[in-house]
């Protein structure tokens, strides 16, 4: 504050020269500092992705690597004309829509409670991090055993179900069990994001609406939700892309039985279990493209402005 003005003035006069020099140095330093992180990220993603793109046009198989030939787009034709691919895609989209919708509603209810709760705040916030932190494989096992008709408690607790009902014997109940595990684990993340959004809404605004005679529902739909748009959209985008990649729960709970496979699971099966890198790579590329399509659709439909939501310049 009390720095003498004379040096500042001389400094000011020199500014153009100093600044351009400094700007160049700053530019160099900045690039150097981000380089290691960027290079590493690209080595593990961009390079393998380009290689997958190349392999997807061959019939490369790890069991017969020498007989690899260029086969054009035939892997893509095989994948896209196979009903299994579309069934798996449909299944993945179904899981994504249901889990994100349920998580949004439950997560928002949780956020409302956490926002208002006065006692035991720490305990609640600690417990809500437990599902988030637990390994997905562990939560998959926990729910698989809970739904088991031999060792689980779910059948005994649901009065309308016969105790011998096998959840993993048909599609509908098997996919429900998988979604329960997924929803259990990721709702807390959703509710924390929404809680952060709720915290940005001023109490004065709500008070004013109340004084004007707005009911609880009116305040929710006219004041709270519109002001949380950014937080809600970001939460949907993050969770939807995450749900589209679903793999761990399916692997642990059904191993893809009863048509519960996801796109990730099918790709994994082709590449790692069947060693068919050619068709597997085509599936990898399609999986990547479909994630981009999902991201694009969500951004367009909900008009998410990531920059604004994240307060980026």
């Amino acid at each position, binding site marked *: 504050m009390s720095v003498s003005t004379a040096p500042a003035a001389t400094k000011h006069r020199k500014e153009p020269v100093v600044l351009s020099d400094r700007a160049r140095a700053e530019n160099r*330093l*900045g*690039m150097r*500092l*981000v380089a*290691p*992180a*960027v290079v*590493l*990220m690209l080595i*593990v*993603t961009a*390079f*393998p*992705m380009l290689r997958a793109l190349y*392999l997807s046009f061959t019939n490369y198989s790890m069991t017969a690597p020498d007989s690899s030939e260029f086969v054009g787009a035939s892997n893509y034709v095989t994948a896209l004309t196979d009903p299994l691919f579309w069934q798996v895609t449909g299944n993945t989209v179904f899981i994504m829509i249901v889990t994100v919708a349920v998580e949004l509603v439950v997560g928002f*209810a949780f956020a409302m*409670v956490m926002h208002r709760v006065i006692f*035991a705040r720490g*305990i609640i*916030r*600690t*417990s*809500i*991090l*437990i*599902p988030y*932190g637990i*390994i*997905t*494989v*562990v939560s998959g*096992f*926990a729910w698989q*055993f*809970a739904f088991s008709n031999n*060792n689980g408690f779910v059948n*005994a*607790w649901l009065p309308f179900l016969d105790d011998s009902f096998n959840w993993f014997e048909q599609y509908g109940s098997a996919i429900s069990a998988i979604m329960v595990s997924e929803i259990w684990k990721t*709702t807390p993340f959703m509710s924390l*994001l929404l*809680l*952060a*959004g709720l915290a940005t809404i001023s109490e004065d605004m709500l008070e004013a609406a109340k004084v004007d005679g707005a009911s609880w529902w009116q305040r929710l739909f006219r004041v709270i939700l519109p002001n949380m748009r950014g937080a809600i959209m970001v939460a949907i985008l*993050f969770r939807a892309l995450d749900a589209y*990649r679903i*793999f761990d729960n399916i*692997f642990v709970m059904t191993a893809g039985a009863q048509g519960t496979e996801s796109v*990730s*699971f099918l*790709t994994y099966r082709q590449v*790692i279990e069947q060693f068919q*890198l050619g068709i597997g*790579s085509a599936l*990898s590329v399609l*999986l*990547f493209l479909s*994630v981009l399509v999902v991201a694009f659709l969500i951004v367009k439909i909900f008009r998410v402005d990531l920059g604004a*939501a*994240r307060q980026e310049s």
Partner: protein
Amino acid sequence: MSLKNRIGIVIGALLILTWCLLPVAWIISLSFKSQDAITTGSPGFLPAAGGGAGWQNYIDVLADDQFRRAIFNSIGISLIATLLSVALATLAAYAIARLEFKGKKFVLTTALVIAMFPVVSLVGPLFDMWRTLGIYDTWLGLIIPYMSFTLPLAIWTLSAFFREIPWEMEQAAQVDGATSWQAFRKVIVPLAAPGVFTAAILTFFFAWNDFVFGISLTSTEAARPIPAALSFFVGSDPFNRPASLLAAGAVVSTIPIIIIILLFQRKIVAGLTSGAVKG
């Protein structure tokens, strides 16, 4: 607040606690059931009379070489990946928050795209590449992908933290006579440390939780981390998965996470929300 509202909030809070803790209580209960009871069927929530196993499942699991090795692998790989990833992310986030340079947007966009990347679509080429390079089924073969997939999260979280730091204080300290190194160490480091620490916790969670790389890029217990080891755990009878043993293993693998959550609850919540919402 009216009485009705207050009752509603109490019920809501109890529902949240049940939601979060019920499956955890269940897996703990399962881990105390005897393997005999599990084989014949034990559909109750708590171990039935005579169906308890005491600490036997834990003793068995901890005596299992594969399991011990997997815990060791997971701790080692996750810690190394976390340290390296946070170190690189700190440099990058400092540059993003503090400096003007070309390619800033490129870095943030790259990070965002990688955060959305379907991990499975990379395992094929990586599987192939790692075998050629000879790092398939090694710690290094998992550390590299873990780092690159945790970097986006760490960069976003840290740059959000760093943007809040009043960097002018560094100059103020220099004006007061501190050398630039002193100013950085005494003023900026203490302000940045909590953010770096939070990013490290989130990164560690991510690495500890990974499953896809864990099962695809390992083939033996040399590097197989705990989630993969749990999923391949068959026990003595391959047709009957030893549920109670698995449950004990699951509880053991969850303990580090629970300890971290209990100690650093506040920091984790701040990190999660600042990275994703405030950005």
